[in-house]
């Protein structure tokens, strides 16, 4: 950890090699349909990790948790950005026209990877809430508004869903 805080090049390379794939997976579960923007986010995430490493506080959780939340937040920010909204319009073009090549092989069905796969096991009414909260970044209040259910219910269902998730992850 000390080495990282001293911005040790080698340590950062190691960090990348070890975690980039896992973080890229979560990024792609949020930015499901644009490999180019997903890899932009991955890049931004690691630059942020590098810049903010001093602010990581061990008492608040594991390093991976910290990085995962940076990745999730950056992905959701991207999801809501103008650039992303615009790119959505271009999506009407056939995918392989401008993406082409290697990346296509990783464009698997994202519903079958990572947490989303685990989410499949949840009850639909629970799943949709976790989907909205975790992968779309909506607040509990926004979800309550959207779905016209009481805030308390949203909270309880999400909590319950997360508890089930914990069991599935074991």
């Amino acid at each position, binding site marked *: 950890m000390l080495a990282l805080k001293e911005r040790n*090049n*080698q340590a*950062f*390379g*190691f960090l*990348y*090699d070890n*975690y*980039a*794939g*896992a*973080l*890229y*997976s*979560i990024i*792609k579960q949020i930015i499901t349909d644009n*490999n180019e923007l997903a*890899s932009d986010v*991955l*890049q931004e995430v*690691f*630059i942020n990790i*590098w*810049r903010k490493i001093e602010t990581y506080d061990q*008492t*608040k*959780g*594991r390093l*991976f*948790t910290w990085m*995962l*939340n940076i990745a*999730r*937040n950056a992905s959701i920010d991207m999801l809501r950005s103008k650039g992303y909204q615009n790119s959505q319009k271009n999506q009407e073009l056939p995918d392989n026209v401008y993406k082409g090549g*290697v*990346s296509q092989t*990783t464009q698997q069905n994202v519903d079958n*990877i*990572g*947490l989303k*796969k*685990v989410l499949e096991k949840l009850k639909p009414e629970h799943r949709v809430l976790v989907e909205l*909260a*975790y992968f779309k970044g909506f607040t*509990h209040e926004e979800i309550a508004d959207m779905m016209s259910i009481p805030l308390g219910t949203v909270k309880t269902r*999400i*909590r*319950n869903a*997360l*508890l089930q*998730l*914990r069991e599935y*992850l*074991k």
Partner: protein
Amino acid sequence: MNLKDYIESGIIESYVMGLATESERAEFERLCAQYPELVAARRKFEESIEASAKEQALPTPPEVKVKIFEAIGKSAPSSLGSTSSNPPKIHTMENSKSPARGPGMLRFAAAAAVILLIGMVWLYFQAKQQNQDLVKENDGLKIQRDTAQNILNRIVQEQKQAIGDPNTTVVNMVGTKSAPKSSANVYWDSASSSVYLVVKNMPQLPNDQQYQLWALIDGKPNDLGVFDATNEKLILKMKNTKKAQAFAITIEKRGGSPSPTLEKMQSMGKATQTQ
């Protein structure tokens, strides 16, 4: 509060996954500092998330790593298992005019550049450090102007640190009958023989007169230097003395006298060493 219920409430998962509200987070962090079981449960969930995420890792676009290291201003270190960042060396006949020197020089130049960079970074931090030291010193002077006592304590502290336990003796100089209000402190460090004088209250003297500090060694006065009482809170570094049973301050003609005028003794204090 029932900790078990709290642990089973889903708060850990909300917290770790970044879904907890600001107040929930604050409460959770506060309780974590209190209950190791809670931290252990959090850690367990974090580990399972991490394991799952790593299991589900996707291959990353190879250019991303290069771009990241470009952005942070360093070259990407070669990684195990990554072939792209460590291309095999191929010597062709065409460019082998100096086959050993070509790549060798390049590597040498790269190494030199790295060393130069390290040197520059080092210099930068040196300069920064020096600047910080100057700022600190400046602050120190401001403090000295305000509270002489503080800075003196700091000097004593520093000396204690430097020498170990130097047995600094603080001698409280009390006024004599002829000058009951006079007071000063002598800080005598018997290890380094340094003597510091803090003038707390010494009456102003006519221009042709000065105070003189004496160390009494085996009954004989030894001159430790003269001082004015122009500034009330003043620290003075006096002459060193290895021995002293007591200190005394007298009023003498400007420049001091070889021996004290005892009837003009202003204050006196015993240096009781507890060694």
